[in-house]
């Protein structure tokens, strides 16, 4: 098979197919004759393996097969193996035979063995071991193979005489059966006995020619390496650090290459006019161009470069004074750095759209307050009025005139007593809103009635910091302070415990009212605290500052802020928590209000979840101020914002 191919191939031909076929045929020191012999030998051996009965000596056969496997090993391990085995000529021949035609032979013997699988499975053991047994071995299922009744010599002789073809029969001792040799096989055997190649079409001389050609180096098996035609003359800068072996070596930055303008005879467009040159003188030293292109008609007329020394000096300075540092760039997907936050859609409802506006104030609305049921809101403005509004219809129900800037308004959290506290200048007024039926009105009037005599005493003695006064004009009480009052809260207290929050310029102090002691000091790290709000559960506080930062404190966690949200470019004017929804908001002088989702978990192991939800715009800037106050509707996820543009807006979900 392989031989027929080889025959057709010319000795000097360098076809790839041939190369492949002979890849493993390394040039050897063996004589060509030995090669020829080995080839024959190999074939013989293959045949012999198939028809074991034919070989005279079983033991030698076994030995050969073992040798064969060794030769195979040596072949795979290369030349060394080959030299080891070459000490024995015969063995070397065999190994050589393996080398010359490894694939073909192996395949042939394998396939022939596959065709007729041996019945016996004892393997290559001396068969004498079974000579005295009744079985010759075991079949594939493990059953004993019984010996056939041997014909005695006479019978066999008679059979030999009777049957003219009996000479073809060969006894296979291994499988204990008679095998009849076909005509073709006898021919093969005869050729082998004569010392020829087993197959008639095998041309020994063609093979020898190939072997000779390989030895002379006419047939090459390796593709010639393509050498790159161009290469970096001075080597690659990037790889030079590897060459030097110093880990810390960093190549110097290259100086800029000269351009056309630095030519001795540049095109006219590069030459600056006289005016341009003059204008360079007016420029700053830094901005002035370093080089002014000039024309020279010939190389001869070029003067010496006056800056040569200076330039090379500066270059040297650059090279050895500039620290060169490897900057490690880490490739991180910026998206992966973002915290995994739930989608806004899943956090609905939250205020998003402004549907209602409360119009009526003439000047900036300083403060708003919602009534507990969410039916009414009150607002104080710098036009000196306090207004009472119906939330649903935006109708202004009532107006109180004070004539002075109203700093702060606050509803009584008790729904039974609709009383409004208003801080105006140095006074705090408690106002009867006039809401409710006669019964509540009676109670409110009772509450707001102050015996004038005691009030006079207080104000006369000036013992306390403030004094109570009956205020007939506004149907309420007037509390006179000596200093301007900025903020009134009915209880800026802890919702469940008797804790009281006081914010100073930088810190928030937490007092226990029962023990009258400072229990905690929250360090905001802010420039100036402007507002504070306590979560309805009581353990979380948000603080807004004048530098636009919002701090969330988890009181159980630490006295440092749990999160600082830098969202507003201008002062935060107020922060607010929603009473029932997990929402909080901040409003700022940049005319926006931010709404956040602020979920506090009852599980102490879980930190509060803060998700920014919406930026509410709509207010106009007025006198440099934007939104001055924001309050949540007590029962709906709605936000009221009070603007310096004298509007109050309601953002609904």
């Amino acid at each position, binding site marked *: 098979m392989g031989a027929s191919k080889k025959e057709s191939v010319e000795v000097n031909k360098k076809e790839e197919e041939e190369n492949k076929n002979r890849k493993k045929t390394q040039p050897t020191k063996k004589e060509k004759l030995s090669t020829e012999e080995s080839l024959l030998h190999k074939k013989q051996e293959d045949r012999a393996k198939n028809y074991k009965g034919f070989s005279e000596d079983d033991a030698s056969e076994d030995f050969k097969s073992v040798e064969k496997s060794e030769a195979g090993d040596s072949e795979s391990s290369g030349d060394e193996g080959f030299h080891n085995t070459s000490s024995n000529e015969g063995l070397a021949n065999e190994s050589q035979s393996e080398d010359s035609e490894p694939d073909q032979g192996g395949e042939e013997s394998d396939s022939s063995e596959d065709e007729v699988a041996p019945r016996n499975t004892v393997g290559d053991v001396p068969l004498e071991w079974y000579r005295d047994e009744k079985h010759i071995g075991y079949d594939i299922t493990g059953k004993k193979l019984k010996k056939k009744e041997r014909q005695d010599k006479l019978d066999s002789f008679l059979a030999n005489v009777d049957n003219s073809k009996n000479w073809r029969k060969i006894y296979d001792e291994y499988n204990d059966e008679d095998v009849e040799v076909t005509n073709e096989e006898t021919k093969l055997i005869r050729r082998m006995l004569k010392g020829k190649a087993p197959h008639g079409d095998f041309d020994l001389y063609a093979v020898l020619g190939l072997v000779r050609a390989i030895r002379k180096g006419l047939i090459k098996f390796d593709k010639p390496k393509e050498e790159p035609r161009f290469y970096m003359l001075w080597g690659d800068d990037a790889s030079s650090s590897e060459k030097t072996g110093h880990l810390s070596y960093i190549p110097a930055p290259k100086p800029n290459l000269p351009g056309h303008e630095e030519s001795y005879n540049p095109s006219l467009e590069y030459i600056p006019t006289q005016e341009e040159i003059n204008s360079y003188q007016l420029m700053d030293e830094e901005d002035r161009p370093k080089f002014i292109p000039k024309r020279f008609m010939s190389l001869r007329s070029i003067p010496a470069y006056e800056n040569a020394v200076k330039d090379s000096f500066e270059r040297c300075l650059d090279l050895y004074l500039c620290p060169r540092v490897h900057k490690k760039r880490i490739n991180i997907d910026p998206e992966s750095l973002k915290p995994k936050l739930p989608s806004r859609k899943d956090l609905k409802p939250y205020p998003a759209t402004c549907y*209602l506006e409360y119009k009526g104030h003439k000047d900036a609305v300083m403060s708003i307050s919602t009534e507990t*049921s969410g*039916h009414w809101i009150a607002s104080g403005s710098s036009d000196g009025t306090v207004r009472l509004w119906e939330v649903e*219809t*935006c109708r202004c129900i009532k107006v109180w005139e004070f004539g002075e800037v109203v700093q702060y308004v606050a509803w009584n959290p008790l729904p039974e007593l609709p009383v409004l506290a208003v801080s105006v200048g140095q006074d705090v007024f408690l106002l009867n809103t006039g809401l409710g039926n006669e019964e509540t009105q009676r109670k409110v009037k009772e509450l707001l009635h102050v015996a004038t005599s005691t009030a006079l005493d207080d104000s006369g003695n000036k013992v306390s910091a403030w004094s109570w006064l009956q205020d007939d004009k506004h149907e309420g009480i007037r509390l006179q302070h000596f200093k301007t009052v900025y903020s009134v809260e009915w209880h800026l207290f802890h919702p469940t415990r008797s804790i009281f929050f006081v914010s100073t310029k930088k810190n928030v102090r937490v007092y226990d009212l029962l023990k009258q002691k400072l229990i905690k000091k929250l360090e905001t790290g802010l420039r100036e605290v402007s507002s504070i709000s306590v979560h309805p559960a009581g353990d979380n506080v948000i603080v807004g500052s004048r530098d636009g930062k919002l701090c969330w404190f988890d009181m159980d966690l630490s006295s440092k802020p749990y999160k600082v949200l830098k969202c507003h470019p201008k002062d935060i004017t107020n922060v607010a928590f929603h009473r029932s929804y997990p929402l909080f908001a901040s409003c700022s002088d940049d005319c926006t209000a931010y709404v956040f989702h602020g979920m506090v978990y009852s599980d102490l192991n879980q930190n509060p979840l803060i998700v920014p939800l919406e930026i509410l715009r709509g207010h106009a800037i007025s006198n440099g101020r934007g939104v001055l106050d924001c309050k949540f509707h007590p029962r709906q996820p*709605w936000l009221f914002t009070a603007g310096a543009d004298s509007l109050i807006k309601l953002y*609904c979900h």
Partner: protein
Amino acid sequence: MGTDMEMDMDGDVEERRVQVRFITKLKPPYRVPNTSIAIPANLTRLGLSTIVNSLLKAGEDEWESQPFDFLIDGELVRLPLEQFLLAKGISAEKVLEIEYIRAVALQKEDEPSLHDDWVSAVDGSCPRFILTGCYDNLGRVWRAAGECTHVLEGHSGAITSVSVVNSEGTDSVTVATASKDETLRLWKFDNEEHSDQPSKIRAFKILRGHNASVQSVAVEASGSMICSGSWDCTINLWRTNVSDTEGDLVSIKKRKVKNKAEESQLEGEALSTLVGHTQCVSSVCWPEPKTIYSASWDHSVRRWDVEMGKDLSSIFCGKPLSCLHVGGEGSALIAAGGSDPILRIWDPRKPGTSAPIYQFSSHNSWISACKWHSKSLFHLLSASYDGKLMLWDLRTAWPLAIADSHEDKVLCADWWKGDSVISGGVDSKLCISSGISVL
């Protein structure tokens, strides 16, 4: 006739045509011959209307053109015919049956009737008069635009809702008003008497029991009971004592008159209270004797059994609701609007779902009122804080008509006489738009 049309149209460039047949439920003068004709597929509603009008004109020379609306498979055509068929997946191969109805439009607008303050409530359930409530604490009765016949005096807070209780008798009419002064009042007046000056009426009965502003009042069909929703989260049921105990009432009244001439008012207490809402009950509706529907700021619509005093079912909407009305097909569809610009309609008979079956979202602000037409199965109107009044047909997602007569928020609206729409708003006007041919 039909061939003439085709001849006319053939002059145009090659275009698709559809075979149609016009049918109608209208009375004879509006009928066209029942033959199928081929019309261009790109016709719009106007084109269809022109064809029908010319068909009618061929039958009757005196015919005055008027707009029509067209229904294909129960849906109003609002796109060019071709697009409509494509969108609805209707085959244009067979003869298409197009039903035409008279187009609904606001044709006439009366001079607005001015009030002294915001008009917060309006009721047009009696065709003889319009009842309005106002933020100046007065109720008013109007015979027609600008003709005020009675003024209802007595409330100490703005009136939030009004309802005609009984208008059976020609001489005596009973009405109920709800107010922010936490009371409801019942009034009786003689509708027939006429004078140049509106006569002042005092309530004959004050209903106390709510602890906060009363937002809404609704009357049972027979007029013997009313219910009211309030900011105190409750619904109270009251007996009107009009039909059944008329005799007693009169006698008590007389006796009282003897004692104190001025204090001729009765005080009534709530018959029962329906508790369940967690926020302000903003609207109530009493369509059947045993069932009350209520809408609340707690985002729910509840159905109450009157006898048991329990809520049978509730629909959650996600937004605070401020108006509710039940009507339409089988008088069972719930229309409600609230703190967003979407008018939602639910069918409570559909089991296992609380998703609205229709959502109309052409308004720009809160919806303040919605009312079904009393006779039509498809028509309803809505009023919004954006100052617009819209007429809706369930068969299309676009409003049939938009009335822009108010300058500010519209607070209340109702149908009147079946062909007019009345509305009141922050601009203190009562607007009457008439000539609406719903049926």
